[in-house]
């Protein structure tokens, strides 16, 4: 593994890690606590983007419905919080399930339910490939979007406002810095897990199926099952990101599931460089930072962001990460 970490790559990755680790200190030093909030958002979207990279970059399954799982995770947190605030049980049959803000119960539920949703959507969507796969995943995400709009109990269009973030023993998640470090830790854990995953035998099969599904199948690999498992893992990862997002903003609404949100996460992956795992983190950071910075200068910042995206496509083959580390992008 270490031989892949050439010097330039090592330099890029370690400086990136250093920036993320030291950020709250810097924010404190220059007296700008908003930086921590902004970077919490970046880290959360990076987590969603890395999970999307697993299926887009390594599995070759371009999903435009990733917010289905992102939004699902967020809604699980929101709905648990709603019942806690409301005092009504979440379910009374077959067993009583009350609302809760215990992160150890709520977050794993979010991951589990998103994964379950991914299993259903994936099982149906994987019958198609290419353009049709893009559209069928979009279709399922839109169905879920309209489903949550129709849930009048949970605020319909307006969504759910939460009174506070989830509770964890010993940590105070209401503190922005502690919450930031927790999100960062989860991102790094998921990144490590994904990295091991794509380098494993499982990852080889997934990448093989991306290059030539028929051949992998003929070699005796049930590629459909492999791809489905990959899709479920990515969905679960996005569910975790969604749960964190709900906690960050303490607000959940159907807008989290709108297809433009899926588009934005996909843009992060492509901008950073798909199939690189680290690239999507860079993509999330660059996209969200550019939004912030350009918006401070001009109301019409999109008129610059658009051509910037086009230029990246035309001149950076493996996205921004490819530009940074040079030719050594690891796409096997």
């Amino acid at each position, binding site marked *: 593994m270490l031989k892949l970490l050439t010097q330039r790559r090592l330099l890029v990755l370690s400086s990136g890690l250093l920036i993320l680790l030291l950020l709250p200190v810097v924010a404190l030093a220059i007296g700008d606590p908003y930086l921590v909030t902004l970077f919490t958002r970046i880290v959360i979207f990076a987590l969603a983007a890395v999970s999307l990279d697993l299926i887009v970059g390594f599995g070759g399954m371009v999903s435009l419905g990733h917010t289905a799982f992102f939004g699902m995770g967020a809604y699980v947190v929101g709905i648990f919080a709603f019942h806690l605030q409301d005092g009504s049980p979440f379910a009374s049959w077959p067993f009583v399930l009350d609302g809760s803000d215990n992160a150890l119960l709520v977050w794993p539920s979010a991951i589990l339910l998103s994964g379950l949703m991914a299993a259903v959507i994936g099982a149906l969507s994987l019958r198609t490939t290419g*353009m049709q796969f893009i559209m*069928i995943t979009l279709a399922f995400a839109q*169905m879920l979007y309209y489903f949550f709009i129709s849930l*009048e109990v949970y605020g319909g269009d307006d969504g759910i406002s939460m009174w506070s973030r989830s509770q964890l023993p010993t940590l105070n998640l209401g503190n922005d810095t502690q919450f930031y470090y927790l999100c960062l830790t989860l991102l790094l854990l998921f990144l490590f897990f994904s990295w091991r995953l794509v380098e494993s035998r499982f990852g080889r099969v997934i990448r093989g199926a991306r290059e030539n599904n028929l051949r992998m199948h003929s070699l005796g690999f049930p590629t459909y099952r492999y791809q489905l498992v990959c899709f479920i893992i990515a969905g679960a990862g996005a569910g975790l990101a969604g749960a964190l997002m709900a906690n960050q903003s303490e607000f959940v609404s159907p807008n989290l599931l709108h297809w433009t949100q899926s588009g934005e996460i996909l843009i992060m992956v492509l901008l950073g460089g798909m199939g690189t795992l680290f690239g999507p983190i860079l993509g999330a950071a660059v996209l969200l930072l550019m939004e912030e910075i350009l918006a401070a200068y001009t109301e019409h910042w999109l*008129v610059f*962001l658009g051509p910037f995206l086009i230029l990246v496509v*035309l001149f950076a083959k493996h996205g921004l990460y490819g530009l940074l580390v040079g030719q050594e992008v690891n796409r096997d």
Partner: protein
Amino acid sequence: MLLFIEQLLNGLQLGVMLFLLSAGLTLVFGIMRVINLAHGSLYMVGAYIAATAFQYTGSFLLALMAALPVAAVVGMIVEMVVLRRLYERDHLDQVLATFGLILFFNELTRIIWGRQPLFMDVPKWLSSTVEIIPGAPYPSYRLAIILVGMLVAVFLYLLLTRTRLGMQIRAGASNREMVAALGVNINLLNTLVFGLGALLAGLAGAMAGPILAVESGMGESILILTFVVIVIGGIGSIRGALIGALLVGLVETLGGYLLPELLRLFLPPAMADGAGASLASMAVYILMAAVLIWRPRGLFPAHG
């Protein structure tokens, strides 16, 4: 019953608009293998130019005459400047680049025309209503849209099957290299097809002006429906685009009217309306998912 007929016609009218957009998109995809998300922007350009020309001249025909060439030229410029470089690239690169184009065009219209939507009047000579069956008056403007759409469908059919250009387009869709080797200027052909697609998108936009608010971002909501249409119909197939467009138009319109009524039969009215409305919004997506699960390549797949 009368309401049902009115909704049926509304569905047809939406279907026709979708056909104008999806015909261009599916041609472009069929020949150039390019996913062009910016197709909705050309629709928006058509609508803005028509609305502006209408404000200055007061003539709907002049507005149309202005919108069509502008949309076509903008489309051809986009093809030559950006898309031409993306033909050999991955679909995802095309998605990212054309998404960039969407952002650019949306913001550009905001800079030029401001954030307030423009409104366009129905031309006087089409502002009356027609009674198709006694007691059911229907706006003649919407009827005119249906008529124009039908004419365009016939025109495209003749163009593709009866002319030399159409033959080249079909040949280009089956085998690009072979057509180029036989001496057809494939670059010019691409630009022409793209211009034709843009022209149709502009036509749809200009005709939508009097029924919808002309505003920045109007292209995206219809763009998604357009993609739904071409995926249902089978990518690259004009016939598929026509059937898909009418299907989606009817499901979208009739769903909003019939589903709440249907649910009222066994749900309390307030709940039925809410659930019916959201089920109606989902209807086209359910339709698409069902079609794709049943036939993963769409109803009329164009290539083998």
